[in-house]
Each structure stands twice: as C-alpha cells, then as structure tokens.
C-alpha cells in the first residue's frame, strides 16, 4: 500500500480545494503572480483537472515593474497549461505614471491593491485563488482557506465562516466574492520540496547568478532595466545574487548567494537564520502591517 507523505497529503488537500471552487463558484479565476508559490498553485491546478485544462483563466495584476524574467515565464507557463492569461494594468496608475521611485507605498496601493479590485470587478470574478500561506506571517495563521470579501472587497475578521472537516461553504450574495488559498497549509520548505519533486519551472531569479546591483537603504536591488534611477555617480556593481521572493524589481531585495541549483537554494535557506519575508521592503512597517493591508483588500 502506498504510504502518503506530507507532500502527498498537502497536494491532495489543495487539489480538493481547487475542485470545490471550480464546482461551486460561478466565475473563478487564479491570481498568478509568477512567484514560486504561484508556480506550485498553477501546477496543482493542472493536476486537479487533467486531462482537461483548468476550467478558469489566470489573472496577472501587473504593476509594469516586475522583473523581465518574470514576464518571460508568465506567458510560457500560461501557454503550457492551456489557460487563458488575463493581464490587468490599473489604467489610473498607468495614466499618472505611478512608479516605485516617486510614489512609495502609493505604487503598491494603486497598481496592486486597486488594480486587483478593478480586475475582479471588471471581469465579475466571484472567486479568486491566491497563493498565500498561513506560515508567511503571524496574522495569516487564522486566515481561512475560503476568505470572504464584501462587495467593496473588504475583509471583516468577524464575518469569516468556520471551516469544518473538508467542507467549504462557497455560497455568497451577489457582488460578494471569495479569495481562496489552496496553499494555506504549506510551509516555505514544503513549497521548495514540492518544486524539486515535481520538477516545476520557476523564474531563474531564484537561483544565484552575477547580476547588476546597487545598494539602497540596506537592500541590494537589481538594476533590471534602464528605468532604474541611478544616483549621480552611482554605478551598478555586479554581484552574485538571488531572490527569496519576487515582486516589483525596484522594491525587492536580493541576497548575496552562490546557490545556483535548487538543492543549493534549499540548503542556503535552511542554513540562514532569518525568516523569509525580510527581503520585501513592504514589510518594514508595523508588526500588524499585513493584517491592515488585508482589511484594505490587498492580498
């Protein structure tokens, strides 16, 4: 008799969640951020519905400031899965030229938070899969797998429903929507182990290579294209770096590393002694920052 490992059981649970939503939601969509968690989620969706393609589109809420390597993988991964790829760019942010250099946190608010709401409203999606995990942050530990949002996309901690057994209640009033997190019970190490086991393609930026960089406020940033504003006299330095998380390139800190293979990355991750999210500038807020963002509608 096959013995199920923890990865087998996590996979089965995630597939079960994906199928429940496909069966019960009217217009589901998968939010695809091109990171490693998204890659795992997309892979699970392909498994859940094989030999058919997943019965929902992928949605990328684009900020126009992602790494070039991310855009390359995005289009290829969607095609390989046989899924429609929808790309949404907040027209207001585009018109106002919102960027991470001039606009600070407004950049994330407008492109990402507002952009996501706009896209969901525009396409009238009533269920959106996201790759968030409960182990990412303390405030996420209580997040449900099915997280309910009002018609205004607000998250009310008191209005969340109890989740029992494997029974998810997907019923909602018109205009309300659900965020669904099929990877809720995965940890960062589970994700890496699963990527290795399944041979899932991820953005090469997760692996160390010599890349042009500058140092800003203690973060090593990669100069990914000529939109990066260098200070007078500042010259990019080539460093061997990789990324633990991927977002907008001017906001995402790299780590100096020689880990060029998946095993080496996992090895380095297990040998480091700081938690995953340190690399993201977005977290350098108050302790409850994620919770506040969630109430506002950020993922």
């Amino acid at each position: 008799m096959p013995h199920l490992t923890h990865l087998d059981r996590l996979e089965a649970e995630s597939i079960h969640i994906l199928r429940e939503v496909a069966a019960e939601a009217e217009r589901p969509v998968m939010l695809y951020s091109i990171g490693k968690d998204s890659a795992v989620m997309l892979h699970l969706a392909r498994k859940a519905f094989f030999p058919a393609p997943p019965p929902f589109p992928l949605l990328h809420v684009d900020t126009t400031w992602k790494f070039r390597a991310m855009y390359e993988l995005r289009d290829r991964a969607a095609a390989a899965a046989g899924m429609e790829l929808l790309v949404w760019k907040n027209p207001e942010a585009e018109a106002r030229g919102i960027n991470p250099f001039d606009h600070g946190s407004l950049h994330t608010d407008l492109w990402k938070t507002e952009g996501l709401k706009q896209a969901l409203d525009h396409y009238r999606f009533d269920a959106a899969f996201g790759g968030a995990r409960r182990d990412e942050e303390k405030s996420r530990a209580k997040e449900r797998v099915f997280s309910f949002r009002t018609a205004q996309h607000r998250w009310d901690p008191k209005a969340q429903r109890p989740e029992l057994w494997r029974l998810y209640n997907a019923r909602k009033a018109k205009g309300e929507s659900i965020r669904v997190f099929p990877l809720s019970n995965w940890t960062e190490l589970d994700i890496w182990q699963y990527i290795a086991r399944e041979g899932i393609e991820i953005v090469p930026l997760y692996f160390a290579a010599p890349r042009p960089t500058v140092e800003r406020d203690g973060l090593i940033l990669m100069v990914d294209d000529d939109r990066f504003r260098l200070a007078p006299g500042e010259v990019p330095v080539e460093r061997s770096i990789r990324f633990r998380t991927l977002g907008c390139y001017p906001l995402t800190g790299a780590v100096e590393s020689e880990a060029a293979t998946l095993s080496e990355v996992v090895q380095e991750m297990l040998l480091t002694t700081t938690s995953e999210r340190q690399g993201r500038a977005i977290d350098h807020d108050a302790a409850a920052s994620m919770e506040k963002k969630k109430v506002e509608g950020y993922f």
Partner: protein
Amino acid sequence: MATARSYQPDALIAADIDAYLAEQANKSLLRFLTCGSVDDGKSTLIGRMLYDARTVFDDQLSQLEADSRRVGTQGQNLDFALLVDGLSAEREQGITIDVAYRFFATARRKFIVADTPGHEQYTRNMVTGASTADLAVILVDARKGVLTQTRRHGFLVNLLGIRRIVLAVNKMDLIGWDRAAYDRIVADFAAFGRSIGMAEAVAIPMAALGGDNIAARSDHTPWFAGPTLIEHLETVEIDADSDAARPFAMPVQWVNRPNLDFRGFSGLITAGTVRPGDRIRTVPSGRVSHVERIVTLDGDLEEAVAGQSVTLTLADEIDCSRGDVIAAADSPPEVADQFATTLVWMDDEPLQPGRGYWLKSGATSATASVRAPDHAIDVNTLAELPAKALGLNDIGVVEIHLDRPIPFAPYAESRDLGGFILVDKLTNKTVAAGMISRALRRSRNVHWQAIEITREAHAAQKHQTPRLLWFTGLSGSGKSTIANLVEKRLHMLGKHSFLLDGDNIRHGLNRDLGFSDADRVENIRRVGEVARLMTDAGLIVLTAFISPFRAERELVRGLLPEGEFVEIFIDTPLEVAEARDTKGLYAKARAGEIANFTGISSPYEPPEHPDIRIDTTRMSPEDAAELIVDRVIGAWTPVI
C-alpha cells in the same frame, strides 16, 4: 533574559543537502489540536514546540525578546505565547480569539497544529479545530487539576470523534514535580473519560515554559516512563492510515469531461484503496461498474489510497454526478433522507426549527428542514436539557429531514460521510456543524413512486399554469379582502383556484401552533407545503398570511418551480392599519393583551423586491384585485 537559542540547522543540511532532502521527502503529516483553559499555558506550549523544533528564526527571536520585555507575562524570561499571537485585536486583549493554524516539523513528521481557545463561549472554535485533527492535546494546570473546562474539552474532543488524546499536565514545576498530585489528576481524567466513552488518554507531566518533557526528557520526572510529547506525536498512528483499511469510498466532486471520449470522476478518496478492475457501485443510483483507469498528470496509477485526490474512469457509461459516491460494490454507503444528528450551533442567530437551511456533506448539498431539538446538552455538566431552539455554542440532538436522499455513513464510522454543515439560505453563513448518528428512515432501495399523472398533466387538464399568489402584509392591511376579490375574478374567468387563509388553516391543520417566532415559522412552512401540493394538482393558490419573515417567504418561493411563486406585498403603513383596526386586535396588542403582535411587539420584514406591490392608501381593493389578475393572467403561458 534567558539564553535564547534560535534556529540551529541540522548538521546534515550542510554536509549533504541531497541526502537531507531525500530524508525529508518521506515525512508523514499529523494534524492535532491543543485545548486548554485560560492560563493553562497553551500558547506557551505551542510556542515552545515551535522553538524546540527550530522553526523560530533570528529576526523572530529578537522580535520575541523585545515583545517579551514590553508586554510579556514571564518577567525576564521569553514569553513563548507571544510567538503564536496573531490578530492585533487579540494581541491587545492578550487572549486568543479564533482558531489559528501553526506548522512545524521534526525529523520524522510535519505537524499542523490547530490552536483553539479555551473560553466557554468558544465551543465553536474548538469544534472547528477538532474536526480536522487526528489527535488532541488537552492541557491541565497541575495546580488546578481537572476542571469543568477540562471536562468540556474532553467531551467536545470525544464528540468530534478524536480517538487519540494526550493529557498534558502542565506547570508541574509549580507543584514541585509532585508525583502523587500528578497521579490524582490522571486518575480523575481517566474516570471522567470512561464515563463518556472517551478513548484512553496518554498522560504526560510537563513544564512547557522550561521545555520539560516537550522535546527533551525532564530531569525532574525520573518516575515517568512514558514518552515526551514530541516522541508521542512523532509515532502515534494517523487517521488517514487507518482509513485506508476500510472499504473504498470516494465522493465525486467534479465530472471531468474535456471531450466526448473522456469522462472522469474526480474526488478525494475518503476510505480504502482502489485499483483498475475493481468492482464499484455508484450511490445513490446503485449502478455497478468497474474502474478502468486511475488518471493523473504523471501517468495512470496502479493503485490509490485514502487521502489521495484522483480521477477515475469507469468501464461503463453510467450516470454519476457531483455529490454521488463511488464505493466498493459490496459495501456501498447507505442512502437516507431523515437523520438523527448532533448539532453544534455556530451562529449568533439561533436555530429556527422549520426554517430552510442548506446541508452540505461530502460534495452533496440538499435542503434541510431542522426539527425542534430533542434536547440540548450542557457541555459543562453533560446534562440533557429541554430546549426549543439552539443558540450560539449550544449543542443539541436534532432530527433533520432532507428534500432528497443522500449517501451517508454514521459519523462514528466516517467523518467525511457523516459530518455536515448547515448554511442559512438567506445569509449564506455557516450556522452549524452536525454529525449524523443514524438514519431515521432507511431508503436504501426506496425510490420515489413514479407518478405518471404529472403536475403538467394536472395543469393541462385545467388549461392553466399553476401559481402561488402569496399575499403578505400587516394585520389589517387588506390581504384577505383583496385575495377574496382576486379569487372571485379568477373563478369568473373559469380558473381553478383555492384560497388558504388564517380561517381555514389556523383552525385545522395548524391548530397546535401559537404565535412565538418558532411557531410562526412552522405555520408558514406548513402553508407553503400545502400550497405546493395544490399547485402540483394544477391549482392557482392564493394565501393571505401576515408572513412577517423574509426568510420564510423565500423558503416557500424555493419550494416551487421558478416563476410560480408571486409575492404580493399589500403595503399599508402601520398607522393606517392600526387606525382601521377592523378586528380590534391592535388595541388589544397595545394594551399588552396579545403577545408577539406583528408591528407592535414582533417585527415585520417587508419584501425587498415584491413581484407586485399594492399601495392601499392610493388604490381601492377592487382596483387592486383587477391589477393583480391582469398581471397574473398577463403573464399567462397557456399549456395547450
């Protein structure tokens, strides 16, 4: 500040990462929940396990040190409870207010911990956490022993069918590691456990703050021969493994049909194993076939077991859809539509017997009618209490009737086929968790009597489309007057109709009902059922009841085919109805002689989108009746 040991990686990681990863790939997964009363040290225990399992990083540890100094309750020591605190509201209150899930791993297993609070009002959270757990750790403060709350935790854990229980006798350091006191607590708990038929607990003396008998064996308990907590958690049997030994069952979640050549049935196997060639039976249809393939993205499988999500194809084209169960041909689950259940009520709004709820079990949903509780159970004394309804955190033994038979198993045999949730049809909230004890009426081989004279045939004979004209409005609004006029006009037009009102229903069929909210709900439910039967017979039915609750009117609407229910709101303001007071009832209600009088001492919920609205301050009853008949006849679709 005590010496802080942060994350210290396994030596094998640096030496041979591939060997380490290979070793990690074969871990199993255990889900458990922790329950304890306030101040038993539950958060501290979880924090300690995370810390001992080396899942706390440097940056988290420095945050913890800072937090411990600022808001900690452990003086100069690390306050491990702060590691597991979540939402900011509760951080400020210093209590845990919901179920939180934590993760850690040891060399042998990955663990998912459901952290549930111990307060009396949070039965709901404990039940939620327990529903997915293989094991429960029940904490007891060694200084206090087995408390009412401890018994409550034991009762709930047992109710949810958890068979593996750890009694964690914590804070042993505070009683000087007194073995006799420990033995007394263990004996007390064992006696209680036997009284409720609970599985035997594994007891462990510990001090979570100092880490005694958590991961490392304590020097203070040379007299204790049992395992440490982590040793026990690493080796205890997992439910999924025992599920694999039972007969095969898989609720169908999704029918996979990419093209005409492929029809797969997808689901998570809840019990047993399956191989190509196995004889299976689909339930409720009872059709038999063979498994052809077990299809996955990585190629077909030779075998699949409980806990796996798979897609099966069958040798024969048999009818099978979402909610059906594919099971071993010789031991399929039973099918029934009436059940004795235990309900845990989880919503602020209490159970209204007779109101319509959705029941979801496996991948099946059905409309459930919940009867008045047989009795409620006091979770503290375990006494059976008479109860008319169930409020938040109440537990009751309740009969449930469904609108159609579903596959099921008693909860004691299968969590997946015996556990269910109830969803309020109006608010969509999950209002209760339930466990099926047994079926009240077996319908394994029973099918509905095939009725050849269909409702269409009845209607066709009368040359009309059945309708239910549902008049709602305050007492004295003019419902009966207008309904009578409408019926007269229909009769003149040669239509077959019948009027149900308080006079012919309250004095006969519903003579046993009063005017409490629960009785009003039941009154309307019965009227709705009678009206439905009459529309089945082809009639145009008119009803004139105050029917003050939106949910009940919607329930009746749901009983009929779309479009047949016509909600007619006789809109008369309260002051106008009260001024008319044709029966003198308002005067009596104002004088306090009538309790629960709609508009005075009981609410009226006006329709939000009535099909027809009649403003009686601007229209005579005759004009209203003409308008209604025009609308109804205007929308006529002749059957012939």
